[in-house]
C-alpha cells in the first residue's frame, strides 16, 4: 500500500488558509522541519514564532497571542505537546477557551515507529479528551488530514489534531468527505458486527472487514475521525443494528477512542465492545507494520476481535 504524509497534507491546508487570513501564525518549539512547515516559513517568515526547544513556553506564547486575536497553531511531537505542556494547554488555553490549535506528531506506534518509546505517543488522545472544552481529531490518512486541518481551523477554541510520522497508508480517495463531529460508515457489508476505527490503522480495519466478509461475517466499518465531541447519535445508530463492536486504534486501550465508544455504548446501547489497542504496555523500536503486528493490531487481531465481540458470553 502506498503512503502519503499526514504532516505535509495538514500543513498544506494550514498554508492555504494562511494566505487568506493574516492572523494565522505557527508557534514552533523547533518543530518547523518536523512539521513540514518549511514552505509556510518560506512564504510567511514573520508568521512563524520560533521559541526554541521549549514546548511549555510555546503553548503559553500561543495563549498570549490568542488573547490579542491571533490564531496560533502549536505543532510538535504529540507527547512533548500533550504531556510536557499538558498543564499549559489545560489552564491557559482550554480553561479560558482561547483559540489555539494543537497539532501532535508521531501519534501512536506507527507514528513513532523506529524512534522508540520516547518518541511514540499512545496517551495523547486520552489526555486531550479529558480536558473540558478541547476537541480531538484523528484523521485516517493524508487526504483526511488535509480536510481535518481545514475543519479544525473553522472551529473556535482549542482543537487537537493527531498526525503521524509522515508515512501513513493512503486508504481513501481524495474526494472522501470529512465532517467534523460525525462518524462515517466506510463499509457496510452487513450488521453482524461494527468495527470502529480511528487514525492510521484504517487500512488494517478495512482489510479485517474484508477478511471477515470472506469468512461469512458481514461487518460495518466506521471511521471515528472526531474523537471529541463524540458523535453519540451516530455511534448509537450503528450499535443498535449490530449489538456488538470492536474498536481499534493505535493508542493505549485506556482513554482513547475505544474508551469513548464504550462510554457511548454504556449510556445509550449497552452491548459488548472489544477494545483493540496497545494493552497498557510500552512497546519498542521497530518498523511500523511489524510493531502493529507485534502489539496486537494485525488484520488477524482485528478480525479475531470482531469475532470475540460477536460471542454471546
Amino acid at each position: 500500500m502506498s503512503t502519503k504524509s499526514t504532516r505535509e497534507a495538514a500543513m498544506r491546508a494550514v498554508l492555504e488558509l494562511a494566505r487568506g487570513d493574516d492572523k494565522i501564525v505557527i508557534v514552533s518549539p523547533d518543530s518547523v522541519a518536523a512539521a513540514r512547515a518549511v514552505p509556510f516559513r518560506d512564504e510567511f517568515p514573520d508568521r512563524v514564532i520560533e521559541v526554541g526547544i521549549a514546548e511549555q513556553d510555546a503553548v503559553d506564547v500561543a495563549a498570549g497571542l490568542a488573547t490579542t486575536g491571533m490564531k496560533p497553531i502549536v505543532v510538535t511531537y504529540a507527547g512533548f505537546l500533550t504531556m510536557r505542556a499538558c498543564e499549559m494547554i489545560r489552564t491557559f488555553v482550554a480553561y479560558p477557551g482561547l483559540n489555539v490549535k494543537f497539532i501532535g506528531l508521531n501519534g501512536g506506534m506507527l507514528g513513532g515507529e523506529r524512534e522508540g518509546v520516547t518518541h511514540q505517543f499512545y496517551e495523547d488522545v486520552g489526555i486531550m479528551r479529558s480536558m473540558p472544552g478541547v476537541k480531538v481529531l484523528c484523521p485516517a490518512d493524508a487526504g483526511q488530514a488535509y480536510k481535518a486541518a481545514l475543519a479544525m481551523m473553522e472551529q473556535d477554541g482549542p482543537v487537537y489534531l493527531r498526525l503521524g510520522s509522515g508515512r501513513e497508508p493512503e486508504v481513501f480517495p481524495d474526494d472522501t468527505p470529512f465532517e467534523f463531529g460525525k462518524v462515517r460508515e466506510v463499509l457496510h457489508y452487513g450488521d453482524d458486527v461494527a468495527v470502529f476505527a480511528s487514525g492510521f490503522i484504517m487500512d488494517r480495519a478495512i482489510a479485517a472487514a474484508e477478511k471477515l466478509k470472506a469468512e461469512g461475517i458481514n461487518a460495518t466499518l466506521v471511521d471515528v475521525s472526531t474523537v471529541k465531541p463524540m458523535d453519540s447519535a451516530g455511534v448509537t445508530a450503528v450499535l443498535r443494528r449490530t449489538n456488538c463492536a470492536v474498536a481499534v486504534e493505535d493508542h493505549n486501550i485506556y482513554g482513547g477512542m475505544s474508551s469513548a465508544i464504550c462510554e457511548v455504548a454504556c449510556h445509550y446501547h449497552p452491548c459488548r465492545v472489544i477494545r483493540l489497542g496497545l494493552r497498557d504496555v510500552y512497546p519498542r523500536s521497530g518498523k511500523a507494520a511489524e510493531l502493529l503486528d507485534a502489539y496486537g493490531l494485525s488484520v488477524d487481531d482485528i478480525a479475531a476481535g470482531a469475532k470475540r465481540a460477536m460471542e454471546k458470553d
Partner: protein
Amino acid sequence: MTVEELSRMANRLRLDVVETVHTAGDGHPGPCMSIADVMAVLFFEELRLDPQNPRWIERDRFILSKGHACPILYAALARRGYFPVEELGGLRSLGSFLQGHPDMNKVPGVDTVSGSLGNGIAIGLGMALGCRYQKIDNHVYVIVGDGEQEEGVIWEAAMAAAKQKAGNLIVFADCNNYQSGGKVTDLSSLYPVEDKWKAFHWHVQVIDGHDISAIRTAIANAKAVTDAPSYIALKTVKGKGVPYMENNNAWHKKVPSDEEVEIARKALGGAI
C-alpha cells in the same frame, strides 16, 4: 497623581486587601503588600486602559503572574472603576466572580488566567508579539514573584523574549525573598538573579520597590529600550505596610482577625 497620592493609593489598596481577606475568610494578604506600590503606579498612572471597554484592543496588557496576590489586583480594578468596591468581599466564594486566582473571562480587566506559577512571562511574550504583529503601540507588563522564578518555563520565556527582541515586554520581579515554604535564599540558588537576566540579554534594573519615584523612572527607562525586554527587580518587603505582616511569612496565606484589621487600618493611614 503626585508621588504622595500614589503612595496613599498604594496604602488604600493594601487596606482593601486586608479587608477583602478578612471578609472573605480566605486569601493571600502578604504577597499583595510587597507589590502595592508598583500596582498603584501601574493602575493609576501608567497603564493605558478603558474600564468601560475592558477588551479594548489598543490597551496596555497586565499580567499578575503571581496570581495568588489577586486580592490586590481586584482592589486595583475596583478602585479603577471596573466593578464596585463592594464586590471585593466576595473573593473565593461560589456566588462571586472573583475567583481564587485570576480568570480573564469572569473578572473584567483581567487579561489572562494566572496563578499557576511561572507562566506569566511566556503568556506576556505572546501578547507582546501579537500586539507588535498587529502594529498596536502598547506595552505588556508582568509581575512575577522571586520564588516563582524557580519554575523552568520562566527561563524558556526569558530566552525566547530576548531572541524576539520584545521591547514592549516589561517584567517586574517582586524580590521579597519569601515564597510559600520559606526564604527563597534557603530553598534555591536563584539569587543573585539579576545577573541571570543580564546573561539572557534582558535590559535589567534593580530598584527599591517601595519608592514610587524609582518605579516611575524605571518604567520610563524600560520603555526607552525598544529592542530588548526589560526586567525590573523590585527590592521589596513581604507584608510591607502592615506591621505584623512585614517579613512574617505566616501571612503568606492567613486571615486577619477583627483586631488585626484595626491595626492595619491605623498603620495604613485609615480609610483614605
